[in-house]
């Protein structure tokens, strides 16, 4: 059997370098170096990505435009969150090298999910990603909230992967295969029966769990709030995007013939997700929790791209996730800078008068809040615009209207942060920001990208459009 590993080169590089980092961690005293090496490793892997197109292992592993786009997204996610972490994990007194290795392995799992052409590979990639993330969520071992976040995330994650396996079993029994493309071919002729529906439902629940689609979102606020903030940034983007990558591939390729059946379900879940995410976010006083609900709501918008289907729908979903990654990590970066020794900085009230004490940080946060709301000329507007456009083009104009209504509602809690920063006087002790060159770089990258994509989106849109095929 001929084995062609060319398409796997970036994954292999990531795996090997992750192992090397684990080893190095034993000898390197300054863990910051490990973080920087982690970024270097990603760069190497990214360098080999353009040559990786192709299929391997009899179609079990597919490296195409779609997966490469997502892999770049995972890389950006990883690089940015590592930049956020370098100082933060020192403040949290968990400065250990395993942290970076686990982030790399988790990213590797996401990459495998995005490239999976077979449900078995998908499952293992998902577990690799998820197990690493569980540990990262509980990385602050001495903090009860971090423990609790890890436990909740882990137990519900394991529960959902059992459901995933049940779904895979049923589709295997129904079609005799686990290859996604083969499933699509097998379903093309034949009728819909209960076993098939059971399988579709189970897969939807399990992937819906990963992307935090209501009503499978309930782990997200608790896990996001308790996890170390840098990990929250990491897992509010990476696993979600990986879930979307899998959702897009499984449902559009594998269950393509059943689009009529599952799109109705997804529409209902999308509306429910936007409602739950936005309405509950309004209530929150903790900014991490608020951003958690906001991230739930954003999954509701992005899933509209999957519902719209086709190249346009997919590319709008991919765009959206990319933009979401930038603005969300940016917002978390600001949240992280507020955390310092002995000061939590997670309450909304800590943002009062930030524009007086730290005008630059406030301005940057303003950009992200505007972008999350979807106000032009920020990237968030572009993302939403294309999602809505795809929905209208696919004949779901009313769904676009609902989404617009909910994004108007979302303005309420995003702009509340802005109001606190600009309209209130500072309270209590003056804040000190925990700044470092790394986090400064991360903020710079995200702010500039959010603005550039907002003002000059064409090249970026073209990239997503080509990637979606």
């Amino acid at each position, binding site marked *: 059997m001929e084995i062609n590993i060319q398409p796997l080169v970036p994954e292999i590089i990531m795996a090997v370098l992750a192992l090397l980092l684990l080893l190095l961690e034993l000898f390197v005293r300054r863990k910051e170096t490990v973080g920087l090496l982690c970024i270097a490793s990603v760069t190497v892997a990214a360098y080999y990505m353009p040559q990786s197109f192709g299929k391997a292992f009899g179609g079990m592993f597919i490296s195409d435009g779609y997966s490469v786009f997502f892999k770049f997204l995972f890389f950006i996610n990883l690089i940015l969150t590592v930049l956020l972490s370098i100082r933060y994990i020192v403040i949290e007194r968990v400065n250990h090298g395993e942290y970076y290795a686990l982030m790399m392995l988790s990213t590797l799992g996401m990459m495998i999910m995005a490239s999976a052409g077979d449900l078995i590979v998908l499952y293992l990639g998902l577990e690799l990603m998820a197990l690493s993330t569980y540990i990262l969520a509980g990385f602050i071992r001495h903090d009860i909230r971090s423990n609790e976040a890890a436990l*909740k995330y882990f137990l519900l994650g394991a529960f959902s992967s059992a459901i995933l396996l049940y779904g895979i079993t049923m589709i295997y029994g129904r079609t005799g295969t686990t290859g996604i493309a083969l499933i699509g071919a097998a379903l093309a002729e034949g009728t*819909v029966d209960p076993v098939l529906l059971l399988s579709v439902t189970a897969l939807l629940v399990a992937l819906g769990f990963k992307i935090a689609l209501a*009503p*499978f979102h309930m782990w997200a606020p608790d896990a996001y709030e308790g996890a170390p903030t840098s990990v929250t940034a990491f897992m509010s983007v990476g696993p979600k995007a990986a879930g979307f990558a899998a959702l897009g591939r499984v449902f559009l390729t594998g269950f393509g013939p059943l689009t009529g059946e599952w799109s109705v379900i997804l529409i209902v879940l999308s509306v429910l997700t936007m409602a739950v995410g936005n*309405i*509950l976010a*309004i209530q929150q006083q903790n900014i991490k929790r608020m951003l958690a609900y906001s991230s739930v709501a954003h999954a509701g918008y992005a899933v509209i791209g999957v519902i719209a289907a086709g190249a346009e729908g997919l590319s709008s979903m991919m765009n959206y996730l990319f933009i979401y990654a930038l603005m969300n990590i940016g917002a978390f970066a600001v949240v992280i800078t507020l955390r310092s020794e002995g000061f939590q900085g997670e309450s909304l009230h800590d943002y009062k008068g930030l524009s007086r004490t730290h005008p630059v940080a406030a301005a940057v946060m303003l950009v992200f809040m505007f972008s999350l709301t979807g106000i032009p000329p920020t990237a968030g507007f572009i993302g939403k615009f294309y999602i809505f456009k795809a929905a209208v083009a696919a004949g779901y104009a009313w769904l676009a209207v609902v989404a617009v209504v909910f994004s108007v509602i979302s303005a309420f809690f995003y702009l509340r942060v802005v109001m606190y920063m600009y309209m209130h006087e500072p309270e209590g002790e003056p804040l000190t920001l925990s700044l470092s060159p790394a986090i400064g770089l991360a903020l710079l990258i995200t702010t500039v990208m959010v603005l550039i994509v907002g003002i*000059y989106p064409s090249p970026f849109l073209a990239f997503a459009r080509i990637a979606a095929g």
Partner: protein
Amino acid sequence: MQYYLLIPFLPLGAFFVNLLLGRRVVRGQAHWPSTLAVLGSLAVSVMVLLDVLEGRTLNEDLYRWILSGDFQVSVGFLIDQLTAVMLIVVTSVSFLVHVYSIGYMHGDPGYYRFYAYLSLFTFSMLMLVMANNFLQLYFGWEAVGLCSYLLIGFWYQKRSASDAGKKAFIVNRFGDFGFGLGVIMVFLTFGTLYYLPVFDNAGDLAARSINILGLEVNLITLIALLLFCGAVGKSAQIPLHVWLPDAMEGPTPVSALIHAATMVTAGVFMVARLNPLFSLSPAAMDVVALVGGVTALFAATIALVQNDIKRVIAYSTISQLGYMFMACGVGAFAAGIFHLYTHAYFKALLFLCAGSVMHAMGGEVDMQRMGGLRRYMPVTYVTMLIASLSISGLPGLAGFFSKDEILFRAYSAGGVGVVVWVLGTVSALLTAFYSFRLVFLTFHGGFRGTEEQRHHLHESPKVMTVPLMLLCAGAIAAGWVGIPPLLGGGGQFSEFLAPVLGHPEAEASHAEEWMTMGLSVLVAAGGVLLALLFYLRNPEIPVRLAERFRPLYSLLWNKYYVDELYDAVVVRPTIFVARNVIVGFTDGALIEGVVNGLPGLVGWLGARVRRIQDGLLQHYGAVMALGLFLIFAIALITLS
């Protein structure tokens, strides 16, 4: 011709410089970047004008922002005769106001902020007039509005100022809502947002109508009226005029630039720019003309009795804007733009003179406390006198030519035109009267202020009076480019704009033209004489008249009670609803209101959702499993 890009982007650059460096670095020198930038824009605008005079026009996209399928949004520039005129108006007035503000705003704690806003405004206004598509027009429209609110509320510590800013914002929302709908309708109808394809295809759709709630409405008329809603708001026409007088809370240079010369004329510009659309709908044209004519008269009557020097000028602005719409409404778009152009100079001059007076009086705006100022401030007096003569229509000055053009065109258009001609001619009388009432009350007679104010009276510094003199030159000479053939001129102005705005056909004889012109001169003279009689010769007359016609006087004094009417009909009910419904709804937190406020199932479900997120992860799991079960069950039921 690429240098035209400098015109908007120089002020934008200055805005960023002041924004980023203003507080720390530039501070007291904040006028330099802004003023130099707008001077540069002015220079380039002149070059563009020369190019356009040689017949070179341009329409191109700078860059595409959103491109998907047939929907395209780009930043693009259309430079033709109309744009060139507007560029000159905007940059020249803006430049002089920038210079004037150096003196006027000197020492204000928000000095750099002021100049940053001014630059941002200039940029937005230039983007608006240079747009080649509806969406950019809309964005510019909103951006100038934003700057206007920021500048009206510039002294936000003053409650009345921030209230005025809010009022301007809210009133404009009504108009802009219609405008936005109009833009959407344009896209839905034509499938594009670029001017030229829309204009090219408009003719084919002239007869198309759509059914709204059982009413057959002509499509073009509907679009034109929706767009005109925006103009009504922005240009402060009836019934959305109420924000402009209050906007006088802003610094006076702002009033001169934004609320006299440029932003408020954006509505007129828009109607003129979209003249191919408006011309296709006689009904919409008549609405425009009537709104303009009625506003001209209505505002002029209010101006008769006001005592606040800036408010008089503000009502005068509303009235003059009415003239411009009158012109557009009768198809004489070039005359409207001509008046826009001359008005920019003499009205900015009036405001800046008023500012100069206020500067001398320590911020006093009540004309009853002024008087005899000509002895102390000769330059201000002379320039203000000339501006007043110009607005009253003294033959030879700028205002004469443009106003005469409008009245003649209205008369010769027939139909509604004759009605608005009557309105306009009566307004001309009133205009002359209130303008000279202002001059006499302020500069003549004895001083009526306090001793302390008298002690401080002085002429303004050079940096303020030189712009006055320059604007004064404009108020005298600006009209000379449009002297009608009847008086031996060439009417070059409307010839120049003809490629864009077309040739209005005059169907009146020379005799009639002489008649309208003579009549307008006569009524202007009458107005001036009346003012002279009332306020210099015999000051008891106005007092006695006010006594005699008490109800009429208080009607005018209270501006026809429009504010009170809106307060009763719109504001109070809204506040009532807000208090009792929305606040009740959001009391504590919105969700609580939603959950408790909505009865029955929804409330029950909402409470469940919140209670289920109770931290116990088994409930989370149970919800997941329930979701699994329900989705499957429903899918199964729908399948069979």
